[in-house]
């Protein structure tokens, strides 16, 4: 075959000067409000200022849990929100990360700073092996398969007591770095904050890259993506692995911070909680995911005064938000603000 492209196109070659970039350059004002620059700035600002409001260990505890959940949810949002693939088993990967850290440090004497990447690597390989067959499924079938994965992980952690300590859970020793024990809210707050900022930065870059474009493409128009030349299985597997690894990292952090792990961290309810955070904050919005994670971690704490009824009230709030804001918290609010702006202009 001689011709590589429809030959008619080459006639106009180079006649046109290349002006596209000029036309799209954002003003400094626009950059400030863009997701990448403005959003990152706001996130760092909030994280930096939050400790001023934290006065005791309990409050640090809640803030750190928010951060750990946010790492999982930002990763899960890549899979659920952007690529449109449901997972009801991500707590399983979270728990595997936590147990990897627990087991490798207590039983094999590995340093915590090495146990975390080792766990992440293991979970990444496992997620890859699982993803190849199950991501051929879609919709309800994919949800069922991932649910199965989560349940299996939960049962294994619960039953293999010789390794995991069984239902009683497992103690995780304090990590020491250069003779300093990493203990207490203040230290862990900054560790989790750093990992979270890194995660958000990674997610935003991934979404803006050609990979992100392919992911958004296969969401909703998978056949079109396939015939456009997108290797859809490859991208789905990749984003599944990335989200599983992030869950594992969050699990490891959680294990070392709370110094205790139980099989309940792999429970089905925990998986559902992560997905709920994604949907609540707003699918396909990284900052929505952050807000979803923060609010749904905080709300049960704030509602603790309604002893016995807090779950009911939480459910009610979630239902109301989803009825009034079906696209999730952040996308709805952003859409509202944009409309106001347009109306004010016209």
């Amino acid at each position, binding site marked *: 075959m001689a011709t590589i492209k429809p030959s*008619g196109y080459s006639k106009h070659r180079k006649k046109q000067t290349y002006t596209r970039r000029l036309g799209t350059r954002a003003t400094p004002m626009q950059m400030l409000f863009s997701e990448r620059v403005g959003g990152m700035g706001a996130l760092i600002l909030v994280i930096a200022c939050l400790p001023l409001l934290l006065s005791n260990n309990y409050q640090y505890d809640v803030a750190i849990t928010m951060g750990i959940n946010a790492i999982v949810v930002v990763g899960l949002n890549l899979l659920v929100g952007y690529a449109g693939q449901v997972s009801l088993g991500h707590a399983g990967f979270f728990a595997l990360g936590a147990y990897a850290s627990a087991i490798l440090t207590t039983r094999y004497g590995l340093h915590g700073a090495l146990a975390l990447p080792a766990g992440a690597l293991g979970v990444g390989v496992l997620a890859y092996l699982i993803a190849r067959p199950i991501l051929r499924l879609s919709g309800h079938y994919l949800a069922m398969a991932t649910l199965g994965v989560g349940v299996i992980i939960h049962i294994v952690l619960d039953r293999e007591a010789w390794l995991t300590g069984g239902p009683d859970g497992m103690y995780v020793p304090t990590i020491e770095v250069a003779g300093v024990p990493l203990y207490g809210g203040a230290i862990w707050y900054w560790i989790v904050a750093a990992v979270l900022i890194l995660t958000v930065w990674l997610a935003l870059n991934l979404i803006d890259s050609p990979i992100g474009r392919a992911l958004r493409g296969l969401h909703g128009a998978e056949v079109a993506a*396939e015939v456009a030349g997108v290797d859809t299985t490859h991208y789905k597997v990749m984003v599944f692995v990335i989200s599983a690894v992030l869950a594992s990292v969050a699990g490891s952090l959680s294990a070392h911070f709370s110094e205790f792990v139980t099989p309940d961290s792999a429970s089905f309810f925990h998986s559902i909680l992560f997905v709920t955070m994604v949907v609540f904050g707003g699918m396909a919005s990284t900052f929505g995911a952050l807000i979803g994670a923060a609010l749904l971690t905080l709300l049960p704490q704030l509602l603790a005064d309604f002893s016995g009824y807090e779950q009911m009230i939480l459910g009610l709030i979630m239902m109301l938000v989803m009825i009034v804001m079906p696209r999730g918290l952040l996308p709805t609010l952003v859409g509202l603000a944009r409309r106001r702006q347009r109306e004010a202009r016209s």
Partner: protein
Amino acid sequence: MLDIEGLTSHYGRIQALDGVDLTVGEGELVALVGANGAGKTTLLRCVSGVQPVTGGRVLFEGKDITRASPHTRVALGIAQVPEGRQMFGPLSVEDNLRLGAVRRKGPKVADDLERMYERFPILKEKRRQPAGTLSGGQQQMLAICRALMSHPRLLLLDEPSMGLAPLLVREIFDTVARLKEQRTTLLLVEQNAHAALGIADRGYVLETGRMVLTDTGPRLLSNDRVKEAYLGL
């Protein structure tokens, strides 16, 4: 360039294609016509690889691609404009085009973008808008451009005139004819048999999964059986 031999395909237990043969030579515009449910779209989907083949072979430039995945076929030079346009609705017009070039990188992609915009200035005007907000005709233009972004040697067009106003239908067929003049090889599936056979070098008539007629475009147009069944004359 494209040789289909004895192709069969099923949806579950229902047979959609029954031993279909078809060839498309280099630079040819071949039209595939037939009634609703004859298997035209299924045949195209078998060529692009999104529909499993249950028997027979698909050869592209002599190479057996019957079992190749859709994205490897795109890499080989087959692009499809799917039925119903299949936009990436929430993505911008430009992102849609860029996804068409997902397997290529570098400044050449930007050159191609400019050429598409030159061809259809309305797409340039709307390049920041979500593709879902375009009109049907504009979406069809975009779908064609998106397929062209992969530099196909064989372009598969599935019902490009479907659901469009008569004026737009003419514009689409003009576009297809222009692509042919530029020596793009085309396989066109259409319910609008008159328009399709009018611009095609050769045509095939598909009836309930079997190929019943094949001839040059003009001769099929004057064929009594075709006239009666598809042209309403």
